């Protein structure tokens, strides 16, 4: 099974991966244009605006005029992204000069948007219908609750109080890469699984949605339809009810899954049923770096390695248990301690102390009282000690490599050594017995080189 990289890749990477035809078809929808625009790096956004009313190609050279020397790499990133998403169409003329123009469909839609505003394909339930809608707070707690249930089911099917409607095969798809099962043992979290749990909700959601989309073809759903519906959903107003009858067949089946994830709440009226998008849904098109979706922290770490988590969530408890010894559990407080043993078991599972891991989890979820102080949210002695404990385990570094011997002559051996050195891959040499070890990534080069000899 291929290693699943847990990167909170954003939606747009998936959009960009779509074939050009499908991508162009997506741009028929104004909301997708808007979502794509919002996902762009700041510089790319500006380029789009700047080109919005220009209908002829603009040379790359003249665009570069605007860039200051130290901004060039950002400029490159922006242009690459624009081309990748087919927002910019690249063309080369006879003089081999590159120029760009906006994708006409994209351009047209945005122009229309600016003048006429965006119109959703469906209107919210009019206020004349007297149905009690959940308040925004209720909705938010519903969404988080739902999401937590899902996560619990995901990591330990037994723990969840109520299960979602996802088929077990679907759950297995989600679990792929997060859990591993050796023989008859209970499934254990993999390294990526740990990282996944420590990510913030938005990033987790993205990961799941990504899996959901990539799996869509198996369920005979067109990924492009799915993407466009999800993006559209992100432009609905949080807390407003929309009639389910406005959805087509495919979308109706999707919306049920989304309800399980907490993206929408389904509400059954007397005659009709409604769906109410939650914050999780409307945040889908938010770029990851935006911290607006950040939750309130709950963890206090003391310099004596004790840990207090003000949380009622079972999930939180489970996460903390991954790297800390839980001592008491009170109705709204979890008390634990970070010990060498608890950390070793975490490291054992491949969880690391650094990024996306224990320390950043503690920092990101620091209780506001702690986070608002000028001092670091997690005491420095604790973070240092965690790192030290980790480095204790990493005394040996493993580099994949290849071993060569049996050289026909000293000359050939030395030339090979030099060649390896030039390519920065020489790890070890023994000139007496004519043996050497090179890094695995230059093995191909080495082989070519030796064959030529």
């Amino acid at each position, binding site marked *: 099974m291929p290693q699943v990289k847990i990167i909170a890749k954003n939606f747009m990477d998936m959009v960009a991966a779509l074939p050009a035809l499908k991508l162009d078809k997506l741009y028929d929808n104004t909301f997708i244009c808007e979502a794509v625009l919002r996902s762009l790096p700041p510089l790319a956004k500006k380029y789009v605006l700047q080109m919005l009313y220009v*209908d002829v190609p603009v040379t790359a050279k003249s665009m570069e005029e605007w860039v200051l020397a130290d901004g060039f790499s950002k400029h490159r990133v922006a242009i690459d992204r624009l081309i990748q998403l087919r927002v910019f169409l690249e063309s080369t003329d006879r003089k081999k000069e590159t120029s760009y123009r906006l994708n006409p469909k994209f351009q047209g839609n945005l122009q229309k948007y600016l003048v006429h505003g965006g119109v959703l394909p469906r209107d919210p339930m009019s206020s004349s219908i007297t149905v009690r809608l959940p308040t925004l707070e209720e909705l938010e707690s519903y969404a988080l609750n739902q999401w937590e249930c899902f996560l619990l089911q995901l990591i330990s099917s037994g723990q969840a109080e109520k299960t979602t409607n996802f088929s077990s095969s679907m759950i297995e798809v989600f679990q792929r890469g997060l859990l591993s099962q050796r023989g008859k043992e209970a499934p254990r979290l993999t390294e990526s699984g740990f990282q996944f749990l420590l990510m913030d909700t938005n990033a987790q959601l993205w990961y799941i949605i990504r899996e959901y989309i990539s799996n869509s073809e198996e369920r005979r759903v067109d990924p492009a339809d799915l993407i466009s519906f999800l993006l559209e959903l992100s432009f609905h107003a949080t807390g407003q009810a929309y009639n389910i009858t406005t959805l087509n067949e495919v979308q109706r089946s999707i919306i049920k899954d989304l309800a399980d994830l907490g993206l929408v709440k389904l509400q059954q009226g007397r005659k009709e049923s409604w769906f109410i998008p939650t914050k999780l849904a409307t945040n889908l098109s938010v770029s990851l770096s935006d911290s607006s979706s950040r939750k309130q922290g709950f963890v206090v770490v003391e310099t004596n390695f004790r840990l207090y988590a003000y949380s009622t969530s079972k999930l939180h408890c489970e996460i903390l248990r991954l790297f800390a010894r839980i001592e008491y559990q009170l109705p709204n407080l979890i008390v634990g301690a970070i010990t060498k043993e608890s950390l070793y078991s975490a490291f054992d599972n491949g969880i690391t102390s650094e990024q996306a891991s224990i320390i950043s989890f503690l920092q990101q979820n620091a209780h506001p009282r702690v986070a608002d102080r000028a001092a670091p949210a997690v005491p420095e002695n604790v973070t240092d000690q965690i790192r030290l404990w980790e480095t204790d385990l990493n005394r040996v570094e493993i580099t994949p490599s290849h071993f060569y011997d049996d050289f026909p002559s000293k000359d050939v051996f030395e030339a090979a050594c030099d060649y390896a050195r030039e390519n920065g891959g020489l790890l070890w040499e023994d000139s007496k017995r004519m043996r050497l070890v090179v890094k695995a990534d230059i093995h191909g080069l080495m082989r070519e080189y030796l064959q030529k000899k």
Partner: protein
Amino acid sequence: MSSGQVVMRARYKKTAKAPGIQGVLIMTEDKFVFTRDDNMSSVEVDVGFRSIKGHKFTKEAPQNKALLNLTQEVKGGGYIFEFDKFSERDICRDFVGKVLGKLQATQSSAQDANVASEKPTITVHDEQLSAEEMELRMKLLRDNSELQKLHKQFVIGGVLTEAEFWATRKKLLAVNASRTSKQRVGFKSAMIADVRPLTDGRTNKVTFSLTPEIIHQIFTEKPAVHQAFLNFVPSKMTEKDFWTKYCRAEYLHRTKNAVAAAAEAAEDEELAVFLKQDDILAREARRKIRRVDPTLDMEADEGDDYIHLPDHGILRDGSKEITDTEYEQYRRTLAQDLNRHAAVVLEGRTLDVELGDTRTVAEALAKSKKAELATEKSDDKANQERLERVSRMAEIEDLQAPHNLPFAPLFIKDPREYFDSQQANALKALGDAGVGTKTINCSLSTGQAYGSLRELISEMKVTGLSDPVVKPEVALKVLNGLTQHLSSTKYNLGKNPQESILDRLPNRTKEELLHHWISIQELLKHFWSSYPITTAYLYTKVSRLKDAMAEIYPNLQGIKESAQSDFRHQVSLLVQPMLQALDAAFTHYDADSQKRSTKSGERSNGFI
């Protein structure tokens, strides 16, 4: 010394080690003459001060000889005189200093600035400076090369006098002066009350020993005793009697014999003074309480007070302090003593009198107290400040703007006039004065104007925004225009927009420009502050400044020309404001002198 001539017996030496020749030294305003004793007719030395560069002298110390060395401008040459006493030497030294200073002032105006010595020399003129002030100025010049350069250029160059130069930098001097206060020896922290009476064991005699130091301390700690001393000694009793009485009172306190104390006080009113609680202290305490931070919550500490609870209290000299309400006024608690003592120690020694004579100490102390009180009373500020603090604390802190930000309010007499000149400048600089003068067609009445605006809005509400917002060709034109504009300016502006033009000039040019800018500022500051010219002195000052400024013109021109062609434009941009500022000064000068000349024609006995 003021006579303009000093006659002193001295020994003339060629070198410091030589025995020297005994004779008479006569110093006048312009020269000094030495005649030896053994040969009165011939003059050994006859030198004009003009050729003297400076003077050195030995420190006053028993092992040192009282020497004065007048060094000549020619290298190595000098005249050493040895005096019998340091005081005699000092008279000569001061005289020399004065004469040299005067000479330098007149001389230097004629001299070129370069001739001036490397080390900044301070020359004394109309103002008399103490050694410390001189030292301070020297130090300032040493520390600040910029200042030293200016000083060298203008003071030694004769454009400004020493006094004028420093007059604009009073703040600098004041700040530095405040730092140089000496440290004083404070009071000992041991309590005098603990000076034990000595008993010899055989008789009932008790001996207190009082030193001047202790007396001083008693005076400051116990204002009542101090007052009593001033009242009674020596009119009513001798000093010895006074202290005996005092010690007796102390003894009564110490034995905790409140009853006896009360009885004795009733008999002897002088003794009573010592035994009763100190009224002055009480008054002072009340005054202090008034100054306490009004927001301080004293009640918060009330729970900490155990002293009044049974089985609690402070042990003093082995016995517990008893509270006996009947003799309240004769009671003195340890806490009171401690507090008073602490306050005095913290306040420090305010008196700079040699301790010895009790009377003088007492009087000096009284004087200083009075002065203190006077200042305190005179400024009502204290109370004002207190009120301010009350109001400040009563409000919520984070709603307050930060206090006492140092700022100077922008004050322009007629903003309209000022603005018009600004606007004119802006337009001139942009070169579109023609357009600028066009005013808006204002023929519309208010009703019409608003009416058409409202119409447009309601029309838009119906039709919405026109589509497309920008025509593609216009958008392209704007974009291309701006791109072109950018590429033409980009390379001129350099990479970093924050980088000023100065940073790209060669270092030498940059430094020269900055130096000229600073010196022009200095000159202009003095120039404008001399107006209106009311005295002949100011008149000469202004003309001196004018001449100095005139000299800068060719220098600026030189910089402009010497700059490399790629920088020339930028340099001339930088030089422009300097020239403008100078031009303004000259225009004013000319206008003023013209006015003056016409006036003086009417009034022949003007001061010019």
